[in-house]
């Protein structure tokens, strides 16, 4: 960082560099590092035993279990949709392609609360299918199915959005080569496409998983907050916090914060892999001497 000799044409004067660096790091410190630190400090404010007790509470355990279950139910569908949408969009030309891409982005733009409300209007007691569902004693709203459905809505773009640009960049040459060498559609997908997109796929799954486990607004509308039954971990955090049980709330929050940290770490590793693969792609297209 020290400037030796003459300053390069595309760098700022020293004082400005330090000012910018201080502003950037200060901003990140106050808005990212401090909150992250606070979660763990607050969680451990009453010491280890209290922390352990808060997490071994049956309601906390059931919330963790429910959160894992929801993620497990939501991800397979999203992976399937992501691959299907990316395959159609990246490898073929058709009318309405950009409209489809826009629609995939829709869940990012809609408020989670509105998402929850939408499903309440469909499946709720006064909803469109409400009377029919009640007559057949099928419970969707304020039960597990609604939690899964809203989480699917919220998280479905993640995989597709990672895969579309990746598959577009890879082009269709390799797949065409596989077909011309006699591969069937499935063989082409399993041996050529899937290995090429596996890191992008994983990246999308990591992001979708983080969101699925952490979703609050939409789930809050449709879950009904039934303790031990329809309380996911984020809802559990809210309830404890509102009961002024700070240690319990932050203990549960610390589990989610750990999940976030694992997500960030996994994301960085996968990003590094993707970067390497794209570099391989770039070098495989540039001519060189033997």
């Amino acid at each position, binding site marked *: *960082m020290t400037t030796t000799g003459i300053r390069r*044409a*595309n*760098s700022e004067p020293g004082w400005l*560099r330090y000012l*910018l*660096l201080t*502003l950037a*790091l200060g*901003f*990140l410190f*106050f*808005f*990212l590092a*401090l*909150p992250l630190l*606070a979660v763990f400090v607050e969680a451990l404010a009453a010491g280890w035993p209290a922390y352990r007790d808060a997490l071994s509470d049956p309601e906390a355990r059931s919330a963790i279990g429910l959160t894992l279950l929801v993620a497990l139910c939501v991800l397979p569908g999203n992976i*399937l949709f992501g691959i*299907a*949408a990316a395959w*159609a969009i990246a*490898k*073929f030309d*058709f009318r309405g392609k950009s409209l*489809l891409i*826009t629609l995939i*982005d*829709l869940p990012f*733009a*809609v*408020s*989670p*609360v*509105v998402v929850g*409300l*939408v*499903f*309440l*209007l*469909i499946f709720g007691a*006064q909803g469109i299918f409400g009377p029919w569902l009640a007559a057949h004693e099928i419970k969707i709203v304020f039960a597990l199915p609604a939690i899964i459905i809203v989480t699917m*809505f919220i998280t*479905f773009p993640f995989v597709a959005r990672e895969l579309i640009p990746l598959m577009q960049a890879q082009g269709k040459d390799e797949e065409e080569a596989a*077909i011309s060498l006699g591969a069937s*559609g499935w063989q082409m997908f399993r041996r050529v496409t899937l290995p090429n997109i596996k890191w992008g796929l994983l990246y999308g799954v990591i992001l979708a998983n983080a969101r699925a486990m*952490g979703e*609050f*607004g939409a789930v*809050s*509308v449709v879950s009904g907050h039934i303790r031990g039954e329809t309380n996911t971990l*984020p809802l559990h*955090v*809210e309830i404890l*916090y509102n009961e002024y049980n700070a240690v319990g*709330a932050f203990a549960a*929050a610390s589990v*989610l914060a750990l999940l*976030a940290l694992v997500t*960030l770490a996994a994301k*960085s590793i996968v990003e590094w892999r993707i970067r390497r693969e794209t570099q391989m792609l770039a070098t495989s297209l540039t001519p060189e001497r033997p």
Partner: protein
Amino acid sequence: MPSTRSHPARVLPGFSLSLGCALVYLSLLVLLPLSGLGFKASHLSFYEFWEMATGERALASYRITFGASLLAALINAVFGLIVAWVLVRYSFPGKRLIDALVDLPFALPTAVAGITLATLYSSNGWIGRYAESFGVKVAFTPLGIVVALTFIGLPFVVRTLQPVIEDIEPEVEEAAASLGASRLQTFVRVVFPGLFPALLTGFTLAFSRSIGEYGSVIFIAGNMPLISEITPLLIISKLEQYDVVGATALAVVMLLISFALLLAVNTLQWWAANRHHGNTRPSTGGKP
């Protein structure tokens, strides 16, 4: 003997299957439910709808939601530009760690962010304590909403700007410098215009996310009607009072705003990608 026929199967397999799967999934999960909202709202006369969507509490909630979102997005535009610039251009210890940390607001559940920020900025919190000694009250005021939304929107501007800053060719800045431009002139006239579309896109993304945000705001906002009540919270409280129709009216307004912002983001990105393409066509005509 020319053979005229419909197109044969495309070389790569699975077009109908994959597009079909995607459309079915999208329709069942997104389009049908959203049209359900429209269906429900269509039971209202326009007058009723207007009445509910523009009640005093609703209007106040729009003002707070938009005002705080706009302010937070502006803060993020300024600091996001600085952070992105520093992360791309400068090297300092721990840079990779900090770079990874920028995505924390994407990864951290909003409820966790909400209770943490509320604790930090409350009158005996780590930050709130000092802020209050200067007479600034953050938690349980509209200012608290701005803080929460700044946290939520932080990655958008940084992440949209980073690749664009990386792509700036150093030659361009060197050329500007060699033509006698000062560093400030180079930035203002050469670098910034190139970054502007991405900055605007990041700003709009952060803004659009903030409008709908719920989890991180409710803990720090205080949620006083007319003062610090955001629209998503108003929807929830209407639901809790079994006023489904009122909630629907507000939801329709929010949904329309979401569509408008989505359209804006797409237009911005299209503009950013194409704005310099119109005039690069070689103008030397004449010769065939």
